[in-house]
């Protein structure tokens, strides 16, 4: 692909893959726990938790980016604390782009895992309990293996969606080549500059290919449920 893409475009592609991979991996444990909470426990606030989890899916990404800026920005409560206590900064950094992507694609992961959990027989967990398996044991050896197709499918779909994230990233961490400029941001930048249509078209083609590959992979994974 080196001949096809310029070094700058290659950088945007690699950054996109890196941001998405980190976003999906970091969000996965939280998505699993949230899905477990919603699927397995009937509690009063379940509806509220479900609604909150789905917020990033329906809110304008720009609004999510803005909220992230307010909370995790240099002067935001969490952002300022992280910077002072640990020297961690999200704004204007690729990690901020990953945070934004993780948040936006979180509902996709929760949804896929939750459906997989609901399709598995809760009686198997009971059987495991009577055979001496505690909570963590059951999570590792029964729950996760049985929900694995859902987990994989959710992760792949989230990864593909994350590659396309634009609004939240550009609002939260701006459009810095080599740092926060992922594929969609690079396409946007190319369109802003005179004569950039060819670059935009190339990046667009790459995006389409990536999306096709990962969405197909996600669907294949979802179909492989244990019966």
């Amino acid at each position, binding site marked *: 692909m080196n001949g096809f893409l310029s070094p700058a475009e290659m950088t945007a592609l690699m950054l996109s893959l890196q941001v998405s991979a980190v976003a999906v991996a970091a969000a996965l444990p939280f998505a699993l726990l949230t899905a477990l909470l919603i699927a397995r426990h009937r509690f009063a606030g379940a509806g509220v938790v479900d609604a909150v989890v789905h917020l990033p899916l329906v809110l304008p990404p720009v609004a999510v980016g803005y909220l992230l800026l307010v909370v995790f920005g240099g002067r935001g409560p969490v952002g300022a604390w992280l910077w002072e206590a640990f020297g961690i900064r999200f704004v204007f950094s690729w990690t901020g782009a990953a945070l934004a992507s993780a948040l936006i694609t979180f509902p996709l992961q929760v949804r896929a895992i939750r459906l997989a959990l609901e399709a598995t*027989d809760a*009686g*198997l967990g*009971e*059987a*495991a*309990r*009577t*055979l*001496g*398996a*505690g909570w963590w*044991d059951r999570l590792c050896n*029964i729950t996760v*293996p*049985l929900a694995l197709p859902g987990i994989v499918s959710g992760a792949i779909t989230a990864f593909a969606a994350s590659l396309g994230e634009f609004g939240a990233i550009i609002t939260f961490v701006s459009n810095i080549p080599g740092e926060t400029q992922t594929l969609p941001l690079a396409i946007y930048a190319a369109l802003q500059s005179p004569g950039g249509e060819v670059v935009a078209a190339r990046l667009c083609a790459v995006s389409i290919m990536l999306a096709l590959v990962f969405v197909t992979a996600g669907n294949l994974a979802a179909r492989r449920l*244990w*019966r």
Partner: protein
Amino acid sequence: MSLEVALKHRLGDFVLDVAFATKGRVTALFGPSGAGKSRIIASVAGLMRPRQGRIVVGGRVLTETPRLFVPPEARRLAVVFQDSRLFPHMSVDDNLKFGWRRAAVKADAASIAHMIDLLGLEGLLHRYPRDLSGGEKARVALGRALLASPEMLLLDEPLASLDAARRDEILPYLERLARETALPMLYVSHQVDEVARLADEIVVIENGRVRLQGPVFELLADVDAPVGVPPLGAVLDAIIEEHQADGLTRLSFNGGVLFVPSLFRPDGAQVRVRLRAEDLMLAIEEPRAISANNVLSCSIAAIMPAGDHVDVQLRCGATRLVSRITGASAARLKLASGQPVYAVVKAVTVAREG
């Protein structure tokens, strides 16, 4: 092993309110579907937390509301569920060893091999649950529970989802388990033949309450038991004395001798025999020249009219038998309590284990 259960729990309109204690090695919870038997098993296993209750197994208090509740994973009571509940992502071998790997006291290689042999699982070890028949699944589920080395085995209608042929395939395994191991069991069933073949003690559950409780030899043959629950019939443990040249097997029990069609078990083996009340004929004088092979000398302990028929309680040595005859026959023979009679049993009607 002793088991003490006292439970009060409400589920919608259904109220479970039971209390019983048993020292039987195999205790059967018997009763119609929806009586609350499975709830009791779930409570003993710790899968259900009763509103009020106390559960003690072998002197270990497992539930005592509201202050104590031992979680199921710490109870060491393995459950065999009606629907097997094998782990679909594990081979039969991994399913079998799931509880074994987590057991505090692990069965050694020899006893694992014995169990695999007893349940006929050799050929299945590398298969997955989706490739097993219903009967095979039930056997694997039983093996998995046994290998966890539980203090007590809880069986929740393990045969109910199987057809008659599969049931007959699994019952002998359960019987061998009940005879050849010292493992205490709590067995839930609504099939009287399963209970008669396996249990020492019966607790009859109806509508969330204990209706009756007693040793299987007494209760199943008790004419005072409420009509139809459970069906009347004597249960006796007999010893194989001789396989005769004429094709009959001679059994001895505490009260006499019984001839049954050939049993393919070694001399000296213990077999359980059930004599249904309907299959016992009564005679005042000792009958001769009849086709029936068994004429047992008994005395009448009680006579209980029940609708158009009469249930006659018999004592045959130390064994309790029961005969169901018509009211007309009872009147014609002028049967009375304490009277000596002969019970006639056709060998072919003896319900026996294989």
